[in-house]
């Protein structure tokens, strides 16, 4: 696993994000919400006019950009983890039922997914959030309600093809119940795909959360998030480009990390790709 550069780089970025989120209170030099109206729109510390107390400068209200960035990682990773986990739970459950039992169950679930997926995902989250009201758990709910369809569609195909393998009727003939076949024969074989999908879903969750907070329908006003920072920094882009650039960079790195990790894991788990690599070396 350590031989794959995708997994190492992606995993490293993800680990960095999670550590930042966990250790934000200790890492942050300032209170992320403390306003210092004397020092508004300060450039980063290394630029002329910078203040070492604010390593990445301050925004229009004199809040420390670095501290807000570090605290923003908390929302990003919390949303990424919980949203992708619950999306996985719902998506996998429905996918397994559809792919294993086929017939009209499959037809019904697949049509629901089709209809669901034909809504533009971000608009759907926006509408959902406007209905629910702000709050970080409502953001998670909004992302889960959009994200489960992706899991469901991809996994259903996998379960469908696993179900055609002879080990399923073989287990049936050995007296296994459907539940046991799903748990012991199907799911272990789909696990690698699930892990991969979770990782990709996390990247999507980070983006959607940023979009939602950018439009101002995400979390409460006193919680710093990257999307809010971008929205705030947008107005003062000429005076202090860092207020917009740094959170954008953070989002970019987080998404890159999740995508690289997911893609790396997919390649690692795919026996066909694995085979060709071992032959070539």
């Amino acid at each position: 696993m350590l031989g794959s550069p995708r997994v190492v780089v992606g995993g490293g970025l993800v680990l960095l994000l999670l550590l930042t989120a966990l250790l934000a209170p200790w890492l942050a030099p300032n209170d992320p919400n403390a306003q210092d109206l004397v020092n508004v729109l300060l450039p980063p510390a290394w630029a002329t006019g910078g203040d070492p107390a604010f390593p990445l400068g301050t925004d229009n209200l004199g809040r420390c950009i670095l501290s807000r960035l570090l605290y923003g990682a908390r929302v990003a990773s919390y949303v990424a983890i919980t949203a992708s986990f619950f999306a996985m739970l719902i998506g996998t459950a429905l996918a397994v039922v559809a792919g294993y039992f086929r017939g009209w169950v499959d037809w019904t679930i697949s049509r629901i997914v089709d209809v669901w997926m034909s809504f533009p995902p971000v608009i759907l989250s926006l509408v959902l959030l406007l209905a629910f009201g702000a709050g970080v758990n409502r953001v998670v709910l909004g992302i889960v309600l959009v994200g489960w369809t992706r899991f469901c569609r991809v996994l259903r195909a996998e379960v469908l093809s696993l179900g055609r393998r002879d080990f399923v009727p073989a287990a049936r003939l050995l007296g296994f119940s459907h539940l046991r076949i799903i748990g012991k024969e199907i799911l272990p074989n789909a696990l690698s795909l699930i892990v991969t999908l979770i990782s990709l879903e996390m990247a999507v969750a980070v983006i959607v959360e940023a979009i939602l907070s950018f439009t101002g329908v995400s979390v409460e006003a006193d919680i710093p998030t990257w999307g809010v920072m971008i929205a705030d920094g947008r107005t003062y882009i000429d005076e202090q480009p860092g207020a917009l650039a740094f959170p954008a960079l953070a989002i970019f790195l987080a998404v890159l990390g999740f995508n690289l990790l997911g893609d790396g894991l997919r390649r690692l788990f795919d026996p066909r790709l694995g085979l060709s690599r071992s032959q070539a070396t």
Partner: protein
Amino acid sequence: MSLLSACDLTLSARLGRTRVDVLNDISFDLAPGEVLGIVGESGAGKSMIGRVISQMLPAGFNVRSGSLCFDGEDLLAASPGRHRELLGDRIAFIPQEPLSGLNPVLTIRDQFNEHLARLGVPRAERRQRAIAALASVQLPRPADLLDRYSFQLSGGMCQRVLIAMAFASNPALLVADEPTTALDVITQAHIVELIHSLNREHRTGIIFITHDLRLAARICDKLLVLYAGEVIESGPASAVFADPRHPYTRALQAANPPLTGPRRQLVALPEQMPGLQALAQVEGCRFGARCPIADAQCRSSQPTLREVGQGHTVRCSPGCEAGARRGDRPLLPQDVALPSTAPIILELGGVSKYYPGNRTWYGRRRAGVAAVKPFDLTIRAGEFVGVVGESGSGKSTLARLVMGLERPTTGSIVLEGKEVAVPGSVAWRHRVATTQMVFQDPQSALNPRRRVIDLLTQAFESTVIPQQGDRAARARELASETGLPADILSRYPHQLSGGQKQRVNIARALCMAPRLLVADEIVSGLDVSVQAQILNLLLRLREERNISILFISHDLSVVRYLCRRVLVMYRGDVVETGSTEDVFANPQHAYTKALLRAVPPDEAGQSWTPLQAEAVDDAA
């Protein structure tokens, strides 16, 4: 002047840091109009020869030394452009899988046009040329065929289309890689006959790659027997087949059950051919580890090819060979007629399976399909009953009916006096405990995420038959009973060889000591030497456990070796039934006759006339 000559061709593959010779010092000569058979089991490197000719080698493989000359031109030195010119025009290929050889989204006409355009046939003539080519492979109504797609044709028809395309350019050389392996025996006979007649007509040189020594001996002029990338025996086909000198060639013959004459015990070679990894470590003779007569010298030095007759060479030391004359193998114990008092295990009365057609949109049903027409069958304890027939004849549906995976449309299936029932009921519990099924393809039937130890005792997890006890102990028991080494218990299926996987597959079915096994084509994916191991294992199980088997196979000689009684199925109908000896010696139904005649005979002297005007057609 030879058409294709290979001289000391060595192909090596990179494996991590080491290099392995996948093909070692291959030399042969093919004259125009000659048929060269390349015979070997999977992994012998026979397909690699075709790939060297087409220069479609897998990544990491390259020709290390030697030469390959086509019509005086060095193929290995030819530029890619020149090579492309030759392929498809002067050198043609027929693939193993006829269905994947054709593009499913293009009609036969499109694919012919593309090919003919490449050959420089003017647009106006293409249609005529295509029809003529299709007619030359005896396809009925070639003009109609042009507008069909490959998936609308049977495997045999697809293979004929591919042969027609291959011969459209009137090639000098044809490479046929297992062209009949995916086909039924009767279709195989037709295809082989066709290739043969085209070979005579066009004087095409043919390389016929196959795993079937009997078939190769029938249609080839010369044979090359390959083992682990080396030619271990070569010479005129008749000489090699009538008097094989290498212990491996002999073993191949001895591992193939005969269709006529006395039934002798098959001699199975231990283990199987070394894979690439193992090959890197082999010292001395590559066959040494499995050779029954290897001595100390064989383990230290590599034997060389030496001449033993007119053009007949063998890679074995003279000392070894002297002691290896074909000893008569012991006869199988005569099947004592089972007493009619032996308990009945399975009784099928008037069982049939009928699939209703789909409803059309206005509610009328389309005509359905009779997968199995009504028939009766009784299996007693300790009895092996064979079911033969081509693909689509209803054999597998029969297996699924017996196992309760499908409900019969009519009739009753009684297992030890109890009606077979739906999953979940009390009778289902009885079914699980008394009958098990062995699936055809262990690759698909063994969960890749389970270790062997869990696979063998998978039944212990069943909710239907709660079984306490030590799983590991039972797994060890099953492993030793089926000849599996104990150290594989902690491995995953992908770490096993093909033969080992099939043993695990069988052993798993035996876990709860069933009375009846339903075996669906369980040896058809295996190499002959491994097949012999499995067949002998089944015979031993009968002796030790008095187990009954419903043995489904398309291979007549295997059925004859194992089964006392046989059912012949044809398009869902049981057309003939009786004792195996009677049915095979004196077939009554036209289909059985055609089936038996399509099998290449065992002895060199016997003539083979697979095709006679029969009522049975292969076009379906």
